[in-house]
């Protein structure tokens, strides 16, 4: 399974938690914006984690998910878990 990319994650977030309303304000660095500023709460992250589990067959542990604050951190955590699982 290929690594998760930021654009893929952005698309997943849109599908499962709605269009981001403040992405336009993030100057293009959406991956480093605090998720709270993007309006994504913990349930949105759970939705995204469930979607990634289905599409990339990688399961993030709950404590790893709890530490995620940005989309880039989410991508890094998923790909680290994926590497560890290989």
């Amino acid at each position: 399974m290929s690594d998760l990319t930021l654009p893929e994650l952005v698309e997943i977030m849109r599908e499962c938690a709605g269009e981001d309303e403040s992405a336009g304000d993030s100057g293009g660095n959406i991956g480093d914006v605090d998720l709270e500023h993007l309006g994504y709460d913990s349930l949105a992250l759970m939705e995204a984690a469930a979607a990634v589990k289905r599409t990339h067959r990688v399961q993030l542990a709950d404590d790893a998910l709890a530490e995620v604050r940005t989309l880039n951190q989410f991508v890094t955590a998923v790909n680290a878990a994926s590497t560890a699982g290989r």
Partner: protein
Amino acid sequence: MTTAVVTGLGVVAPNGLGAEAFWSASLRGQDAIRSIRRFDVSSYPSKLAGEVHDFEASRHVPSRLIPQTDRMTQFALAAADWAIADSSVDTALSSQLEMGVITASASGGFDFGQRELQHLWHDGPDHVSAYMSFAWFYAVNTGQISIRHDLRGPTGVFVAEQAGGLVALDHARRVIRGGTSLVLAGGMDSSLGPYGMAAQVAGGQLSTRDDPAHAYLPFDRDATGHVPGEGGAILLVEDERRALARDARIYGEIAGYGSTFDPRPDSGRPSNLRRAIEVALADAGLTTADIAVVFADAAGAAELDRVEAHTLVELFGPHGVPVTAPKTMIGRLYSGGAPLDVVLALLALRAGVIPPTTRVTPGYDIDLVRGEPRPFTGTAALVLARGHHGFNSALVVRSRGKEDR
């Protein structure tokens, strides 16, 4: 005593989105009962409903909230937005703790629940939305409205089937008397999907006629049950002093309320509907002579219709007060039904015209406003709502002229 007034109306109805569209459709007698479109209803014994066809969630609800909300919550969020806009209130000017949300829901998010149960059984637990944790829940409309507008004062949810919407409006009045400055209050329901309709069919109250002209005929000797609908109303209820201070338009006052519960069906004792009306009138400081129009519960079932008609005849005399049931155009909307009647009652008092009941030939000694709107004069209206299994609620609304303040 603090007066609770209505200063904003938010409506989602099968025959009109928004209070103005709903009001004009109701005056025209615009029927919205049709064969259900949203799924193949051919195997169901009841095939008709008052569906809302022109509500596009993406136009009325922030996209972030769409994946986490059932249709009834999308209705409620839109109606709450419209009520706030209609009232011209600026919620940023009040303490969050002085503003509340009190809604009624009879069934919760059936469509959302059905979809996620299908995911569970078809694809497995990993495919169930995390939002299932609250999106199906009957209390979710109050929660989502509270979060969206940052209203952190008194909140609550009432479940009393069709009576619930009146309970919520009365409770809004109570918390305003307790010091809350404004409350978004009302009720919203939508359960016309395959699962929702299956549950309603099992309830045994639905008409099984396929002809929209003969399916829901309250007070008619030919009544055979009701047709369900979806939607409802959220009203902005406000402390009158505050409304006057900001020079708000005031639709009218929530002036009185009464609720009772019926005895066991096998007890042989009569319904307590009459007492609910008497309590509401006493609460408003009014008598039957002050009531200019009654918006009936209009169950569409022989025994319930008989009880309501006889109660009105006992209290007001034969043909003693104009009675109307505009819900014949849209069906029974459960917790959304009575708040829509309250909207019509307030607008009727302002306009001096009563929206009609459609299609019915009354079989009782009541003065049913039929076919055409009827001009009238008066300052108070009585709205009745009964919930399945014995809930009776009565609410009095009164217009607020300058002379009343």
